[in-house]
């Protein structure tokens, strides 16, 4: 593999890992608080759709981003209301919401765009940061990215800091490991979990808009295509820590990028096998084959007094 090809591979790995990373960090926040937020797939799809429609209608990708965030909000609110307030089964509500969002966005897409489905949607341009871009060979290929990529990195660092070094961080951990204790400490399990789900919704929506107006500048029906589930797998793979979840996302991203790179360097690997790669890795992670899993103890358990 030449240096140029390697640079392209790294660049596209980063680009493909980013939506996954945003969603996985969002999912991590919910799961650390004890909510297995299956509806992340639907949240992403709602964000992607809202972003596309917003950008197309206003002509401004920034307004599109805003619409994307707003579009995921009802999904997050319903998820939070059902699982935290009504204590419904988290997995069932999540799957239900995913199906609902898939149906709703597909219907709305056909209603709004109809025959104009080829229409391009204004998206964010790629941007090269000043000094980094000047690095020979790698500069352009690796660092020329949508600014959302850099925003995502900041978000991840912030999330890690909040989880590790702040009062909210230990409260979230307690909500997921031992909610009863958290309540006895005078904090509200419901408020923390509700807030965590909303936060997940926002990060998932950001991930969704990245897909539609950050990366390929179009919307297709069901375009998240399991990315949300992959984000959940990344959290499991990452053993519910920020650091390892980031690694997992980049592994998944690189596995996806490989699909495009291997043919380019003339390696004849069946394409189907490559497409399967991230899912295979995720499967191994979920099956517990990658190290010992220490999920939050109260994960997916509704809190009852």
């Amino acid at each position, binding site marked *: 593999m030449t240096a140029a090809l390697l640079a392209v591979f790294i660049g596209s790995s980063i680009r493909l890992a980013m939506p996954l990373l945003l969603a996985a960090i969002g999912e991590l926040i919910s799961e650390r608080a004890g909510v297995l937020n299956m509806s992340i797939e639907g949240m992403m799809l709602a964000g992607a759709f809202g972003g596309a429609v917003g950008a197309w209608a206003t002509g401004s990708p920034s307004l599109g981003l805003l619409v994307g965030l707003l579009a995921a909000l009802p999904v997050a609110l319903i998820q939070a209301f059902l699982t935290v307030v009504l204590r419904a089964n988290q997995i069932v509500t999540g799957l239900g919401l995913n199906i609902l969002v898939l149906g709703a966005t597909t219907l709305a897409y056909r209603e709004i765009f109809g025959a104009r489905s080829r229409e391009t949607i204004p998206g964010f341009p790629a941007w090269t940061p000043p000094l980094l871009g000047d690095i020979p060979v790698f500069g352009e290929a690796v660092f020329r990215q949508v600014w959302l990529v850099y925003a995502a990195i900041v978000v991840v660092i912030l999330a890690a800091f909040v989880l590790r*070094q*702040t*009062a909210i*961080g*230990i*409260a979230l*951990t*307690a909500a997921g*490991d*031992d909610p*009863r*204790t*958290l*309540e*006895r*400490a*005078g*904090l509200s399990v419901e408020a923390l979990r509700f807030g965590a789900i909303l936060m997940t919704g926002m990060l998932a929506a950001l991930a969704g808009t990245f897909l539609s107006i950050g990366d390929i500048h179009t919307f297709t029906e069901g375009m998240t295509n399991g990315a949300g589930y992959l984000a959940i797998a990344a959290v499991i793979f990452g053993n519910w820590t920020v650091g390892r979840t980031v690694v997992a996302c980049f592994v998944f991203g690189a596995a996806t990028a490989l699909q495009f790179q291997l043919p380019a360097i003339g390696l004849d690997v069946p394409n189907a096998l490559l497409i399967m790669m991230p899912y295979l890795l995720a499967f191994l992670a979920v099956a517990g084959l990658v190290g*010992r899993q*220490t999920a*939050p*103890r109260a994960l997916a358990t509704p809190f009852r007094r």
Partner: protein
Amino acid sequence: MNAPVTDAKSSGALLELDGLTRRFGAFTALSAVDLTIRAGEVHCLLGENGAGKSTLCNLVFGMHPPSEGEMRVEGKPYRPVGPRDALAAGIAMVHQHFSLVDEMSVVDNLMLGRVRGILDRRGWARRLDGLAERYGLALAPFARVGDLSIGERQRVEIVKCLMLEPRLLILDEPTAVLLPDEIRSLLGVCRRVAEEGAAVLLVTHKLAEIREAADRATVLRQGQVAATSEAPAREIERLVRAMIRRDLDTLDSAMAATLGVAEAGPAEKPDKPKPAEIPAGPDVLQIDNISQRDADGATRLNGVTLTLRAGEIVGLAGVEGNGQSELGLILAGLRAPDSGRLFLGEQDLTGRKPTAFTQAGIGIVPEDRHRVGAIVDMSVAENIFLNRTGDFTRFGLLRRQAMYDAAAEMMQRFDVRATGPDARFGRLSGGNQQKAVLARELTAPGLRFLLAAQPTRGLDVGAVEAVYALIREAASRGVAVLLISSELDEVLTVAHRIAVIYRGRIVGERPSDPRHRNAIGAMMAGQAAPEEPAISEKAA
């Protein structure tokens, strides 16, 4: 917030309960309770399980609202709607079950709910050291709570409360899980806190603790105040009568064990109907050099060897978490040991399935009644005949009426009180649930060995006695019984012989005799047994 209290003030009421009543559905847990707690006193709250002690604490701590009645703190109305209000009023509580997050460090647990923004872990570690010095409660600030011993975890709980400089510290049965030494140091902390001017409400049913620490005492029975005492150390007998309506010298062994009478001093030693001679039946169960590691690779059982003879009750004493649970799972066939063998008579059961264990004649009363012992959503009858539904089927169909009839008979024989055989198991009281589990296990055909793991945990005194009687009856039929218990009084009462487990090893064995109490207690704490005067085994 917690200025030294003058004498005049210390006689004043800190917390007053006035006609406090709490109902749960049709059940009245607490009925018109009046109680005054003064600053600077250790106030003991006595009562059997189910007498309403925990309910009272929970009302004061704001976990439930009272149905009727009023509470006042320093004369001002106090109506907490949650623990937050209680904490704001200067009331802190150590719960019966620890409220610590095992996965977090000691300081993180201390800071939970107490800080905002960015964590100052070093500053809190220093505060912890300061408190540790003041009360003699040493703790490693950055240790993970899950790695601490039970005694250390309780220290964290207490420090957590003391950091708030509370005016009232509530301790809900704090000594149930502690070793004798730890109990002594805990009572010392209680005294210290009271001397500094705060009040301590100590919930207990152990007489020795009242003797040692209480300034005043209140007895609850069936949700009502049955007695109060200004000088409880001198009025133990009256308090016991009020608590269980029986005199000290007519206590049966179960009550003596529950109350810790053996420790209580003068009123020592009610007559013990315990057969001291160890029955000399043939060997039934052989645990041969069993070791096991957990998922983290930590050794949980380390070469455990123990032989039980027919008709013998062996008590396995130890502080919880020293390998008893793991041994229980192995004896139930739910887990295979990493090494070592397990024999029932001549039959090698190592690595066999649970059904093989049952067929070979092993009965299990598991530690966790709800998860392993029974299916709470099924009926009592279904639970009693869970392993024998085949007896009630014809052409593959279950004849439910026949099963109910047989269950009704069993329920009468084992005194399981429920609305009927079709009652949901989960609706039964703990004692009746345990009796139903015993009914199933003890009537299994060909029973040769019974494992009873913490069989009386959470039961009231009456049910405790019934469980002991059933265990003894099984032993007299020639069943070998292993009684796993963290209550030293319990094994002393029921067992013929006591083996002590510490960190996954059997560290010693003694005949079951109260005179070995200190030696056994020391072994439970991991110390070598102290030199003890030679006790002739026949003397008992």
